[in-house]
């Protein structure tokens, strides 16, 4: 008996060890992307990455790899990175606010750090949080970009990252105006035309939009897919920021228009009660969908909407061509109000010891018309350069997916109308909590007043300094 037990113990421990050691040994170097070789045998090592001086390392904070691939393709590849500079990427996923937590902690230690952050990226929804502090440098006064460098960028992309005293704190390579993408076949059936200019006349303001929703319903279609589809068109057009000068929360009339419209649509069956990015929402965009249209932004058309519209996915040998699902059945128009959705901004960190290089990065990736045009041609990302975009808009560029429409032209027309002067540092929390709290109201679980009350509670949890309006 004792013998058995000992053998068993030995077997278990050795199994664990073998598993660990083989795992460590066998996969030693398949990963060419890792600059620093991993420690031998996998024992915990506390060494910090390359012991190079901070001014020889360009340290960049991001939450995903989008900017990294732009940086690699359009800054490193053309040979703009000095040979003696190392790039260190610190990519922390957004989940559970991990990115901001980490970034904030490091920014606060920036002065005493011997490995200083040079660049960090931010999203529009919380841009003001960083823009209103000294942790981000003034793009003009500190980094050295000139008005001439910045003249072709869309104005709204600068409004979002301009602080209260008028200083520009960041730049972006993309512009993300939003449009209404609709099904041509449904438009023909209900409105008698599928021409974008004609359809736009039916949808040019919210009253008309609502009238069409009734017509859609009568013919067995749904106007929208989910609760939040139209949210950003309303939230982008509020008349004052979410919080007033005395830290009192202020829910704009426009937000209640979204609430009432969505409740009305939900109760009457004009929408399909889905959520953004949920499978049901994706299915509504496909061949079986009965939904008239979707509010979509630049990046959404060619990647998300196109993929969802196919009957046989690209990964399974399906072709992006007419005949596969409803490819070719979509078109875009401006919709009732101009708005934007998405985008990433580049900020220079206070204390950066590579200012000249940061300036080069900003110039190349956000101001250089040739680079910007190339990015759009390569990736179909809509870039932040009016001259380059106008050039493509006026070309004979056609999207087969949109039935031959030149949607870049449409975007180029829509982008200058976006007005983001009412952005605040609370927008991320406000957007999340407003959508979540009112979902209960749309679902019929709480009254409108209770939903509003829940919204105040949730927001004050996030921002303890805020107060409920009296």
């Amino acid at each position, binding site marked *: 008996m004792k013998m058995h*037990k000992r053998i*068993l113990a030995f077997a278990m421990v050795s199994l664990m060890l073998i*598993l660990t050691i083989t795992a460590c040994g066998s*996969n030693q170097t398949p990963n060419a992307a890792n600059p620093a070789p991993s420690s031998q045998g996998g024992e915990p090592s506390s060494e910090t990455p390359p012991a190079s001086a901070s001014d020889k390392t360009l340290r960049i904070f991001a939450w995903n790899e989008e900017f990294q691939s732009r940086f690699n393709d359009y800054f490193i590849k053309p040979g703009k990175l000095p040979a003696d500079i190392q790039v260190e990427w610190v990519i922390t996923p957004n989940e559970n606010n991990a990115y901001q937590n*980490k970034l904030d902690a490091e920014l606060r230690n920036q002065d005493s750090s011997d490995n200083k952050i040079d660049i960090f990226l931010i999203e529009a929804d919380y841009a003001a949080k960083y823009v209103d502090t000294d942790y981000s440098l003034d793009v003009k006064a500190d980094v050295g970009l000139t008005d001439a460098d910045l003249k072709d960028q869309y104005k709204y992309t600068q409004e979002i990252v301009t602080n209260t005293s008028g200083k520009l704190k960041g730049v972006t390579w993309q512009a993300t105006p939003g449009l209404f993408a609709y099904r041509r076949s449904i438009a023909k059936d209900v409105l008698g035309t599928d021409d974008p200019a004609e359809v736009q006349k039916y949808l040019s303001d919210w009253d008309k939009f609502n009238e069409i929703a009734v017509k859609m319903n009568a013919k067995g279609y749904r106007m929208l897919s989910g609760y939040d589809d139209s949210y950003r068109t309303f939230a982008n057009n509020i008349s004052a920021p979410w919080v007033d000068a005395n830290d009192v929360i202020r829910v704009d009339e426009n937000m209640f228009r979204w609430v009432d419209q969505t409740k009305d649509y939900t109760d009457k069956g004009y929408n399909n009660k889905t959520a953004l990015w949920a499978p049901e929402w*994706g299915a509504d965009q496909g061949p079986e969908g009965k939904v008239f249209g979707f509010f979509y932004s630049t990046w959404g058309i060619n990647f998300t909407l196109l993929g969802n519209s196919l009957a046989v996915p690209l990964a399974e040998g399906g072709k992006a061509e007419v005949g596969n699902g409803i490819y070719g059945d979509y078109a875009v128009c401006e919709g009732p109000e101009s708005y934007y959705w998405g985008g990433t901004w580049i900020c220079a960190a206070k204390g950066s010891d590579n200012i000249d290089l940061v300036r080069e990065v900003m110039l190349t990736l956000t101001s250089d018309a040739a680079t910007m045009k190339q990015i759009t041609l390569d990736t179909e*990302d809509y870039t932040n350069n009016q001259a380059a975009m106008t050039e493509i808009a006026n070309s004979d560029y056609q999207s087969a997916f949109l039935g031959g429409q030149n949607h870049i032209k449409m975007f180029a027309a829509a982008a200058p109308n976006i007005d983001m002067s009412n952005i605040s540092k609370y927008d991320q929390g406000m957007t999340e909590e407003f959508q979540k709290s009112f979902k209960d109201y749309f679902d019929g679980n709480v009254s409108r007043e209770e939903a509003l009350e829940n919204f105040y509670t949730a927001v004050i949890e996030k921002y303890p300094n805020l107060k409920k309006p009296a």
Partner: protein
Amino acid sequence: MNSRAKNAAQRSLSVRRVFCYIFLILLTFLSLFSFYILVINATRSHPDIQKGFSFLPGKSLIFNLKNLFTNQNLPVLSSLRNSLFISACTALVGTYFSAMTAFGIHAYNFRFKKFAFAFIMMVMLVPTQVSALGFVRLMSTMGLRNSFIPLILPSVAAPIVFFFMKQYMESTLPIEIIEAARIDGSNEFHTFNRIVLPIMKPAMAVQAIFMFVASWNNYFMPALLLDSSNKKTLPILIAQLRSADFMKFDMGQVYTLVAIAIVPVIIVYLLLSKFIVRGVALGSVKG
């Protein structure tokens, strides 16, 4: 017993058995269904998943795998290795030191014994979440960012594992055994390693699995501590993939990576579960 009564007993046993099987099959279905969905979705492409649920597998597994392994920012293999290392060490360190602490409390009398036991019981009740940010700050000042030490060494003080070991010792480890060893001239430490640990084996195997899995699936703490790409663990990669930008957002890849992440755990579990069942069986047949 006459034969009729025996038959009746036999019949009622068969009825019970049928009932047991039906119940077990139902539970099996419930337990495995989510795995089924996971495997199915791992073989489907993102737009396919977006279109709704399917009971049949898609044809995109190879495509998803290729996407995962060619992505330079997703060091899948090195993260597998890191996760394996951290989890195995946590399980070993945690079970060994918890048994040691339990033994210290169980076998000896000393002045602060009651206090020590009460203290551990109390700290078991403290939710870990709130001190997380303080912990990260402390580790940073100690220069332990991007190190596996803050992920492994805290398991030396695992109150819940300690409590399990203590309970187990109470039912299986009579003090007489230790005293007998002392009479044989065994050093206390030696007694612990050579006599106590083998008796504790079933308990240690069970807790090792629990600790391994918990550490393997841990996201929050590693995400706050590890940022250099060759130190990342699998849950971090999964989160990274889930928060990918809209152009690269791909549920097919997410499901495939989750599937990759659970395969090693299942293998370790299947291997160890045999030892556990046998170990438990051995423990019960006391010589």
